[in-house]
């Protein structure tokens, strides 16, 4: 997967530079390197997540919230608007009702003379006519200048009452047309009256009617707005004119009344505590024109805004849910990507170490071939001198036995050491690049058997047996047999040496086709002492050896490495301390082009 997109690229470049930085910290900090790399990757991971949040989640949430708030505002306004319209409508109906009755009384008073009205039966007829459809007026009466009833039709016995002291009497006399607030009056029941005055023959009389409280109240109260709505009326002093539906009583003082008269429709928001439950209410107030009564509509906020709240909750839940999903997906994807980057980096690193190894070997090759060549000549001379001394000693034996012993000892030591040097230079010169490789088609199995034959005799004395597990179906390969032999001999020699203090053991050599079928695999497994974890990375390094001085040059495996690479193959080692070691060699069916050309 190649990460694309600028952001990703930037991040990727970052990741690479992180790892590059750590690579430069040098060989001594290998342990640190791993820890640091891990930290870098988790930092990369965090950065990714952070950026995704900043670039997608944050705006999403922001926009979501903004839209949500905006929408709620809008919906609220709409709802309040509808409420307002309904309240206004209601107000109009009440006003119309009052006005209609007033007009009616006025009309009756204007069109009829007092003589006619007080005549037995006429007033009854008028009342019946008014109440024909709805029971609008409870009673009706004619009152003269002195406050005495001239005529009365209604359910109460009020004909002999004098109203000259009633609060409304003076008002009517002044205003000519008048609507009272609710009051108890003589009948001891809440009611309100309407009255008009008329002048006739220099005398004033009053037509007074009581509005049917029940029908007025039902007009006001029964127009329900919502499930929880209360509708009631207050007079200009804040006294309930209708029953407010909750704990208040008609004709009692409403608490918190301000009494400021205006022509608008006003909303208030109110929180009341009902049995320890807080309930929010929307209060909508508007003043009637005549009389100046305050129409109050109280609705439960919850009920009204329930839909918005629902919608809000739904959008918020889905918003946060999608944010969560994005987050989870991002975490997964990022994790996957970081893993991929990590894998790529480790592959890169692997390749780098291989290149470094190859580079090391190349420079060793050049240098060592030169040095070895120069040292070889003096070595050859020393060897001949040594031999000459041996010859001379044979011809003229030394008479002093002590000196003779010393001389013989030294000579033999010189011989050993010179041979050791020769061994080293010989190995070093194997690094010198061969100008010509002899490339032949060989059958690996036959080849392996030959190598085993060669080594078996030597190994037998150490109690080591060979076992071969050869796959006969593998195809022949093109390679340099003498180089390949060198590789196998070095590895097998190591395997034999690894059984040093065991006295017995087994070396298994297996062949098979590689998994991708483009090459063959040779496996050499031993039951020797194994390689320690801290050494396993170094075994291919030139001069790395655990053998005692003089026993090994530490060049065997690095020679193998350089040869295997030259032949286009791969070498890999695994080991279990105390149990054994396994070398896996892979060779392509055909060596690299450059080898074929030279060969």
């Amino acid at each position: 997967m190649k990460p694309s997109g600028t952001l990703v690229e930037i991040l990727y470049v970052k990741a690479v530079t992180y790892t590059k930085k750590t690579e430069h910290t040098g060989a001594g900090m290998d342990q640190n390197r791993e820890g640091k790399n891990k930290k870098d990757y988790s930092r990369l991971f965090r950065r990714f997540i952070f950026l995704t949040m900043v670039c997608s989640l944050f705006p999403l949430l922001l926009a979501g919230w903004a839209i949500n708030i905006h929408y709620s505002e809008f919906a609220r306004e709409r709802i309040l608007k509808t409420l307002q319209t309904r309240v206004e409508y209601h107000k109009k109906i009440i006003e119309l009702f009052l006005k209609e009755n007033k007009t009616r009384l006025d009309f009756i008073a204007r069109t009829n003379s007092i003589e006619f009205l007080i005549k037995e039966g006429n007033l009854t007829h008028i009342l019946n006519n008014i109440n024909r459809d709805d029971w609008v007026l409870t009673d009706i009466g004619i009152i003269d200048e002195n406050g005495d009833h001239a005529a009365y039709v209604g359910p109460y016995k009020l004909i002999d009452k004098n109203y000259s002291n009633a609060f409304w009497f003076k008002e009517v006399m002044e205003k000519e047309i008048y609507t009272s607030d609710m009051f108890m009056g003589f009948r001891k029941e809440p009611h309100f009256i309407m009255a008009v005055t008329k002048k006739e023959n220099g005398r004033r009389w009053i037509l007074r009617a009581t509005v049917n409280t029940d029908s007025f109240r039902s007009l006001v109260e029964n127009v329900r707005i919502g499930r929880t709505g209360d509708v009631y009326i207050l007079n200009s002093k804040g006294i309930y004119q209708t029953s407010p539906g909750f704990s208040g009583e008609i004709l009692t003082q409403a608490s918190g009344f301000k009494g400021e008269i205006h022509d608008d429709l006003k909303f208030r928001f109110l929180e009341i505590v009902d049995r320890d439950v807080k309930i929010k209410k929307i209060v909508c107030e508007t003043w009637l024109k005549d009389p100046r009564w305050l129409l109050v509509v109280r609705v439960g906020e919850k009920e009204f805004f329930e839909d918005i709240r629902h919608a809000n909750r739904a959008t918020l839940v889905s918003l946060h849910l999608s944010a969560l999903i994005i987050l989870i997906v991002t975490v997964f994807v990022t994790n996957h990507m970081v893993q991929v980057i990590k894998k790529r980096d480790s592959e890169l690193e692997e390749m780098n170490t291989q290149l470094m190894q190859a580079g090391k070997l190349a420079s060793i090759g050049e240098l060592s071939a030169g040095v070895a060549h120069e040292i070889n000549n003096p070595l050859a001379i020393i060897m001949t001198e040594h031999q000459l001394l041996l010859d001379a000693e044979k011809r003229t034996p030394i008479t002093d036995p002590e000196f003779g012993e010393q001389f013989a000892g030294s000579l033999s030591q010189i011989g050993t050491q010179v041979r050791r040097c020769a061994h080293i230079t010989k190995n070093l010169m194997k690094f010198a690049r061969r100008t010509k490789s002899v490339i032949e088609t060989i059958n690996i199995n036959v080849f392996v058997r030959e190598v085993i034959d060669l080594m078996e005799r030597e190994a037998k004395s150490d109690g080591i047996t060979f076992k071969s597990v050869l796959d006969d179906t593998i195809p022949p390969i093109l390679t340099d047999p003498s180089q390949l032999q060198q590789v196998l001999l070095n590895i097998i020699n190591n395997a034999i040496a690894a059984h040093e203090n065991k006295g017995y053991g087994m070396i298994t050599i297996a062949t098979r086709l590689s998994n991708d079928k483009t090459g063959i695999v040779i496996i050499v497994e031993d039951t020797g002492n194994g390689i320690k974890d801290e050494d396993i990375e170094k075994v291919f390094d030139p001069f790395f050896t655990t053998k005692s001085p003089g026993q090994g040059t530490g060049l065997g495996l690095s020679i193998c490495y350089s040869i295997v690479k030259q032949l286009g193959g791969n070498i890999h080692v695994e080991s279990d301390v105390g149990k054994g070691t396994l070398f896996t060699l892979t060779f392509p069916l055909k060596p690299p082009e450059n080898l074929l050309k030279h060969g």
Partner: protein
Amino acid sequence: MIGSKILLVDDEEIFCDNMAKLLQNRQYKVTAVYNGESAIRALEKENFDVVVLDLKMPGMNGITTLKEIKKLGLFTETLLLTGHGSVDAAIEAIRLGAYDFLTKPCEVDELVEKIEGAWRKKDEAWKKDLENKLKKVVESPSDVFKLFD
């Protein structure tokens, strides 16, 4: 073969002299020269059974010297001394008719073994040649003088 005549050719004079002494100690008749030209001159003057030739020399190197020796058409076998890096050159030398090669530094005993091998080969070739010549003399006695060419 005791008394075989050996020509040692090596530019490393001390090595050459030492080797000569060692071979003399082993009853060979040894002549040591330090370059290819002297070797050719010596071969023109004298017969040698085996020539031990260093591969890497200034002036005429081992391979050119070997080619020159072959041109002389003598009954001489050539052994080459090489460094380890020059296996290819050694293989080429064998292709050109050298008897074998040895990598320096080498033990004197190894060299002696190879010299013996070379001598036997030379001896066989020589005997065969002589036989052929004798056969020819039998067929045409007038050729008898050619035997001593």
